[in-house]
């Protein structure tokens, strides 16, 4: 792999850009791999990358039904934060956030990580008490967050309306080290690094069946033939239930659309990420100048990759009250991604009833920010067969044992 650098740009500029290589190979599938990962989104590719980098396993195929990074990795609002209440979630999200800080150097791909700060507005007394509690919990977990007063909110976000009237801003939970990154570059960077380690990324290859013998997974059937495997990792977000059905076990997951929209581009107006969980809206400004807006999830199962239209109205109504200056902006695009919601709104990183088969699912609305931490923990789980310290609380057995990681209470809807 030729490294990307300032010199490479100069070299290619001097020869009409004829020397750029393909970022990753597109090989035909081999007969058998040590590990097959289903799903070439951020989480699947990160799992493959850390299996190679941390555990020396490189005989890996990453299978993708559509195209690389074309699911939720390409559909999120790119927010990165780790200000969670529960210890287990704070640990894995903080691991992810810290890996984002050095990801561009690590992958030799500019993922445009921008630690511009994430602000979660407290707009009711109950929410304010909740965030004060989270700030104290974060202090104990070693995650740097502060509860800031309205005056400081106004200083950081001059365009904000503090006085409501329906939901005045009473303060905010502020994580200065949170921010955003370029979502496609994260998937491309991992894919390029994986391909460089000799792993096969096979796109347009849908898994149609899972073969097993004596309780152990032996192969997957795909639209490109049968591929044998020693271990299998399912990392497919919204479509996890369909794969679990093939493998013969049940999941505590329901799939719902979560939607987002972007405005027409405007001059720089807001340089932090603002989340308003009470009124269901969050917003940041992309490098192109578009306001990237995340809305609510539908309350019912759907695989349609488009959300209900009235959620757009609710989201925009809330944001216009919070940021009156955006009231005449036009929205350019709106889309949805299928997120997998678990019973306790926390992810699943787990062994499954099928031997040699592991699952990484249930990230719900918190998928993008967790990509490197999730891949790191999943690689540990797949390589060793047992979860490490990051993944141990996220096993499937917690639903039977009642050990929930109850973040839906802590984080409201915008996870």
């Amino acid at each position, binding site marked *: 792999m030729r490294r990307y650098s300032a010199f490479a740009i100069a070299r290619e500029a001097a020869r009409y850009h004829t020397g750029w290589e393909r970022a990753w190979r597109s090989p035909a599938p081999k007969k058998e791999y040590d590990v097959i990962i289903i799903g070439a989104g951020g989480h699947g590719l990160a799992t493959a990358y850390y299996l190679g980098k941390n555990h020396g396993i490189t005989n890996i195929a990453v299978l993708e039904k559509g195209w690389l990074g074309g699911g939720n990795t390409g559909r999120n609002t790119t927010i990165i934060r780790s200000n969670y209440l529960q210890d287990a979630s704070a640990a894995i999200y903080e691991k992810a956030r810290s890996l984002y800080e050095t990801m561009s150097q690590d992958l030799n791909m500019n993922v445009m990580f921008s630690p511009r700060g994430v602000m979660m507005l407290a707009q009711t007394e109950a929410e304010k008490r909740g965030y004060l509690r989270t700030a104290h919990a974060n202090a104990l977990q070693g995650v740097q967050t502060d509860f800031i007063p309205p005056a400081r909110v106004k200083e950081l976000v001059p365009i904000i309306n503090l006085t409501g009237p329906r939901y005045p801003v009473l303060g905010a939970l502020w994580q200065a080290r949170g921010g955003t990154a370029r979502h496609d570059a994260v998937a491309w960077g991992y894919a390029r690094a994986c391909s460089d380690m000799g792993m096969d990324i096979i796109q347009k290859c849908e898994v149609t069946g899972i073969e097993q013998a004596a309780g152990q997974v032996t192969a997957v059937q795909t639209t490109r033939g049968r591929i044998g495997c020693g271990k299998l990792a399912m990392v497919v977000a919204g479509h996890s239930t369909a794969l679990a059905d093939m493998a013969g076990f049940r999941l*505590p*997951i329901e799939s719902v659309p979560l939607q987002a929209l972007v405005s027409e581009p405007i001059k720089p107006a807001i340089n932090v990420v603002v989340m308003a969980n009470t009124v269901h809206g969050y917003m940041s400004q992309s490098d192109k100048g578009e306001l990237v807006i995340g809305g609510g999830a539908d309350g019912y199962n*759907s*695989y349609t990759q488009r959300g209900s239209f*009235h959620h757009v109205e609710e989201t925009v109504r809330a944001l216009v009250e919070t940021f009156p200056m955006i009231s005449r902006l036009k929205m350019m695009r709106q889309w949805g991604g299928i997120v997998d919601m678990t019973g306790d709104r926390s992810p699943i990183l787990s062994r499954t009833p099928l031997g040699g088969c592991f699952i990484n699912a249930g990230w719900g609305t918190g998928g993008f920010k967790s990509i490197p931490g999730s891949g790191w923990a999943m690689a540990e789980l797949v390589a060793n067969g047992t979860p490490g310290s990051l993944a141990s609380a996220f096993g499937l057995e917690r639903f039977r044992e009642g050990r929930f990681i109850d973040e839906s209470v802590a984080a409201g809807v915008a996870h």
Partner: protein
Amino acid sequence: MLIFECPYCGVMADETELAPGGEAHLTRVGAGADEADFEGYLFHRKNPRGVHFERWRHAAGCGKWFHAARDTMNLEVFGTYSAQVFAPPKELVAVIKKKRPDWEGWV
């Protein structure tokens, strides 16, 4: 936008006046059931790609719970029926089977 006919008051209600209630016809287990059954009842869901039976409540209307059958892949509504039953009516199952020949059927 989803529109259901409320089987109780007859109103064609859109989703803004309805509250979703999740998968229908779950087998309710009680005290004394084993832990695996209880886990299934509380958490495991079919989450199908296709025909789905659900509970809904006409929250901003007559307030009654009812059942609905719907396709999760394209949001087509097959029909609604009373909440006072343990399985979907045979006529509705026949209608769905006709529209979706590949559907495994009501199980």
